[in-house]
Structure formats: C-alpha cells, structure tokens
C-alpha cells in the first residue's frame, strides 16, 4: 500500500502507476521500445528509398552523361539541316521525312536534357566531346562522327531547287551513320534501362530512315 500512495502524490504529471506488480513499467517500456523501433525502421527504409536513386544515378564522367550531352549536339545539327530541307526541298517526300526527323530528334533532345537535369548534371561536360566513348578518337576538327562541316552547312543553306534535296540527303545519310556509331557505343557500355530504351529507339528509327534516305537519293538524282 505504500507504493500506491507514492504514485498518488505524483500522479498528476507522471501517471506511471506501478501499483501493479512491477510488470507494468517493464511491458510499458517494451511497448515503447517496439514502437520506437518500428518508427525508426520506417524512417530508415524511407531514407534508403530516397537516397538509393540519388547514389546510383549516372555521374558527371559517366557514359550516360557523355552520351546525353554529345547526342544533343549531334541531334541539334540534324534538326537544323532537316528544317532547311523542310522549308526548301523540292520533293514532297524529302520535306516529309525532313520534318519527321526534325521533330523526332528535337523530342529526343528534350528527353536527354531532362536526364541531365534529373541527374543533377550540367548540359556541358568538363571533358572534351566523345571522351566517354572507348574509341573517342573519332572527333575530327571538333566534329563528332557524321556531322557536317560549317562549309557544308553553308552550302546547304545557300542551295536552291533540287540541289537542296541532294545535299540534304547526303548530309543526313552521313549524319545518321555517325549517330548510329555513337548510339552503338552507348548501348555497349550502359545498363541504364531508360538510356537503353531511348537509344534503342533512336537506332531503330535512324536505321529505317537510312533506307528511306537512300531511296530518296536515287529519286533526287533523277531530278
């Protein structure tokens, strides 16, 4: 009976009531400890879920980042060439494939730029272009594989009539060949599912377009 009395005196603030046989406090702490453990466990799991994608995303020097940056540059020139052809080419089929390439590749630029942003990386790398590729030696005069020289771009802009079609088809054919070379390198070296998916779509599309470009070249050669 002594214990209860003691409790009574403090029951207003500390309602711990050990007027039971001492098992009460013990089980109470047990419950508390379990509850804390559950909460801590949940928090740890949540933190792990938050951090994992952050720690596993591609870094600044990764193949994925290099591909996203360089393919953006590569695509950007294809978009320019295609929009010139869409505006000025003679054959309707050439204009049609040109506008398809332009919007398709512009869309892919959007996807690749979004990757970089999501990975917390800058669109500009600190290494020279193509250094992510094992055979990075393929940069010529600062141009990636298949890219048109400034002189070729000027000539395309200045061309008129069927000459636009012919120059565009030739430039875009080479451009796609170089592009596929870069895509293959990325596919070889990445296992990032999203990068693989988009790169594979790019490759399939460009391979089909190569056939169509070649067919149109024959048509344009006739005049």
């Amino acid at each position, binding site marked *: 009976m002594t214990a209860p009395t003691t409790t*009574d005196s403090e*029951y207003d603030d500390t*309602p711990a*009531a050990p007027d039971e046989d001492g098992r*009460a406090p013990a089980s109470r702490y047990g419950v508390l400890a379990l509850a804390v453990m559950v909460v801590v466990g949940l928090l740890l799991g949540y933190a792990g879920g938050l951090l994992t994608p952050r720690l596993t995303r591609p870094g600044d020097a990764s193949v994925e980042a290099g591909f996203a940056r360089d393919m953006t540059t590569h695509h950007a020139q294809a978009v320019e060439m295609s929009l010139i052809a869409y505006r000025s080419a003679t054959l309707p089929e050439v204009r049609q494939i040109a506008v*398809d390439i332009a919007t398709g590749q512009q869309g*892919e630029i959007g*996807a690749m730029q979004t990757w970089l942003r999501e990975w917390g990386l800058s669109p500009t790398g600190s290494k020279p272009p193509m250094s992510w590729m094992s055979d990075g030696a393929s940069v010529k005069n600062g141009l990636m594989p298949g890219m048109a020289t400034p002189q070729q771009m000027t000539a395309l802009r200045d061309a008129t009539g069927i000459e636009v079609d012919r120059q565009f088809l030739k430039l875009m054919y080479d451009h796609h060949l170089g592009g596929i070379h870069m895509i293959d390198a990325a596919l070889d070296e990445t296992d990032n599912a999203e990068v693989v998916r988009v790169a594979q779509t790019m490759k*399939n599309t460009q391979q089909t377009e190569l056939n169509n470009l070649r067919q149109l070249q024959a048509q344009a050669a006739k005049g």
Partner: protein
Amino acid sequence: MSISTPGGPERRPTVVSTGKKPAAGRPASGAKAGSGKPASSPRAGGKGPRKPVTPVKVSQGRAWGPIALFVAVGVLAAGIIGYGAWASFQGSKPWDKRANAIDGIVNIRKTDKASLEYESHKSGPLTYKYSPPVGGVHNAAWQNCMGDVYDAPIANEHAVHSLEHGAVWVTYRPDLPKDQVEKLAGKVRGVEKMLMSPYEGLDKPISLQAWGYQLKVDNADDSRIDEFIKDLRVNASVEGPTALCNTGITATGTTPRELPQQQQPAQQ
C-alpha cells in the same frame, strides 16, 4: 469500470488508467472533477481496503490498451507499406505488360513479328495480312492523326504510317449506330496520336489498332477501349513519343495519295 458515486477512491484508479492508456475517453469528466481534488483527497482517504478491487479492473484495461495501440500502429504501418508496394508495383508495370493483360487483345508483335518488318517506305497501294492492318510496310506519307475523326474510309497505306508514329486508330463498321459512333469520336476528337475512320468489311463492329496490337469489340461502351488507348497510345510508337502526327494526309479515300506538291514554290 463503473464509476459509481464513490468519489475519491474510485476516481483515482480511473485517472491512473487514463495516464497509461489515453484512448479511454471515459475518464474525461472524472478527470476534470478530480484534477483539483484527488491530489489531496485520495491520499487522505484511507482507501486501503478498497484498493485490491480496483487495481484488478485497471490492470485489465492496461493489458488491452497497449495491445490495441500496437495492433493499430502495426496495421497502419503494414497498410501503408503494403499499399505503397502494391501501387508502385502496378504503376511500374511496363505498358506492354498492361496491354497484354487486356482480355481479347491480339499481340502481333509476339505472334507474327515478321509481318511488321519492312525495309523502307513504298509508294502506291499495298496489301496487308490483317484487316485492318496493324503494321508493316507503308507509304512515305502518314494520315494526319491529330485527333482526326474521318467520316469516310481512309487508306491503309497512310494509316499504318500513323500507327508507326504511335497513333491509335479506331475503326468501326459503317453500320454502327450513330450514338455509338459519336461515343467513339468523343475519345478521339482533338487528341493527338488518335484517328478514327469507318472501315468496310470488319468482322466486328469496332476494331482498335496500334502498331502490332489489335482489339476487336462489339460495343462502344466496352471498357477495354479505354484500356487499349491508355496503354498503347504513344507507347506503341516505333519512333519515340515525338514522331509527327501533323503535316499528314487529311483527305479520305482508300486509294493512297502522293504527297501534295503544295505551296512549296510560294515559300521559296
């Protein structure tokens, strides 16, 4: 814990149990009344004899309280985790898995992949293995698929190119009742990567096509129509999500057309 008239002695244990297990609620009034008084009165009161009775009751309350709390927390946690896991599992299911789960869908990508392959664009009329066609070789021009609702049949050779660009092509038998047609049109009109046209000789009233997929249904109210569109529109694109649906052929007629020479000279 029947709180009867007896003031001090009864009240005390009640409050005690409250401290332990908050949920009770019952003590509220008692606690209020007691808050000032009991501090002194219980102590003064020689409740020695009565106590053995009350603790027993209280301890029963104590036993259930933690259990209830614990179960509640446990169930809540399991529920949250379970729902999260289920939702993310469902959400992360790839579109092709979801499409394959549609009852009655035909997946030509699986059953007849070869029929979808082609070398390059081919002009003029072409023949197709499936009716309506779901892929394969096609003309250079695509049918405009910016949510266009065509009121007459269109050329397969253009529509297949639209499928390649990720469009869902809704076709219906010309004898489909007007209100059904209108219901279908409501799912198409104004939505890019969608097109719709009547189709002669369908074996079912309605047939939906995406590149490599087909679903035939009897009724515009069939919920699988929305499933098909949800899972395959854009996703089925061979050339990624931004392949064009505009600048295509907007004329009807089942004979494929050459691309118009249009105002090309004027632009130069």
